């Protein structure tokens, strides 16, 4: 399986690369041209990861199921790791406009759910921004598993802190 998910490899830059693939050349992004789109320039949207055969680890047991059940590339990781899902809490990251803590649920090496146990803002305006930004960052984190960007330009305060906390959650998963 060439497209091994390497969420546990500690290979992180930015939010998207955080969840990206190491394999070179594998391009899993689809450009969707948008005609008269009122909300911005033509977007390069993340296509769902091509479904791959799921290999059941011998003797593995699923403890809990969390998040979407879309079939994604399943890594043939270390044989000691079964497909059981486990949730790892990231560190509470303080940034200019608030605090955020991200938790990642992994099925083997694959991220199946991302939650935000803590998210506080310094003022109403920041809270409003976060109320829009955070759910979308969660979706982005899940979708990004199919993208292999090394780095993303245009990150902002909330997304920086989100990525930092998510990274620490994934680092915890490595230990």
């Amino acid at each position: 399986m060439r497209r091994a998910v390497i969420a546990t490899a500690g290979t992180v830059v930015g939010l998207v690369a955080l969840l990206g693939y190491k394999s070179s050349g594998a391009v899993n992004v689809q450009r969707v041209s948008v005609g008269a789109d009122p909300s911005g320039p033509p977007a390069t949207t993340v296509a769902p990861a091509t479904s791959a055969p799921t290999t059941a680890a011998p003797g593995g047991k699923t403890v809990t199921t969390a998040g979407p059940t879309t079939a994604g590339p399943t890594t043939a990781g270390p044989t000691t790791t079964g497909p059981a899902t486990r949730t790892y809490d990231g560190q509470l990251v303080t940034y200019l406009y608030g605090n955020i803590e991200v938790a990642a649920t992994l099925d083997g090496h694959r991220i199946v759910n991302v939650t935000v146990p803590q998210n506080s803002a310094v003022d109403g305006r920041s809270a409003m921004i976060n109320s829009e930004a955070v759910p979308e960052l969660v979706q982005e984190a899940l979708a990004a598993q199919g993208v292999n960007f090394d780095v993303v330009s245009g990150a902002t305060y909330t997304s920086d802190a989100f990525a930092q906390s998510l990274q620490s959650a994934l680092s915890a998963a490595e230990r």
Partner: protein
Amino acid sequence: MSELTAPSAWARAVHHEAVMGTVVTFDVRTAAPADGKPPPAEGVAAAVEAAVGWLHWVDTTFSTYQYGSEVNRFDRGELAAADCCAELRHILALCHELHGATGGFFDAWATARFDPSGVVKGWSIEQASSILVAAGFPDHAIDGGGDIRLRGRPGPGRSWEVGVRHPRRRGAYSAALSLGEAAVATSGTYERGAHVINPITGRPATELASVTVIGPELTTADAYATAALAMGADAPGWLADLDGYEAQVASEQGRGWSTAGFKRLERQLLGSS
């Protein structure tokens, strides 16, 4: 982890540092030595530590929030330019230069005080990148809150794959780029709303949602992206005339524009692998 220790794989060391009001991420790639042993991790750590130390020194020196910072003492007239450190004098000269090069749209004096923040971040990351190169790590990416300096390559036979965040639709990208040695700076009004002031009118720049500039180094790429955002509708014309820089502009009305060179850097998608 077996895919990381394969002979062809490069080692990757990542470090996040909260500095200058954002998160700076260092991503250092090292080619696997011929004998198959991993490269000395402490060498990477020491180089990153030196670069991080530099960024914190810059933060302290140029902080407009700390009363006693050198930039504030200079601004209050307590310190003559000649008595400032070489770095501050360099930034001062750079601010004059950029003011001229951008027709006044990059203006460190726009807020009735000297505030070089618009150039300090890009410049300091550029220097941090040079520290890593000098330490023997020519292959790396440094991401300062979405402004990026790319050096060398990310792995054998690979280009840096860079996503440009869509200014309005999260989870979407307005470009996917394949880059070698380059700097990518994005200045936008998204998330925090308008935060760039048009120094000519004194009002917040609201015409454009975002500007992305690709250039040979981050100091000017970052300043040009900021200046172009302030220019509004005139930005494409100005950006198109810049030698050695490519750009993409997204207007608030939803129109996108990019230079021909920018389009050439956009990677072939789906089915090209």
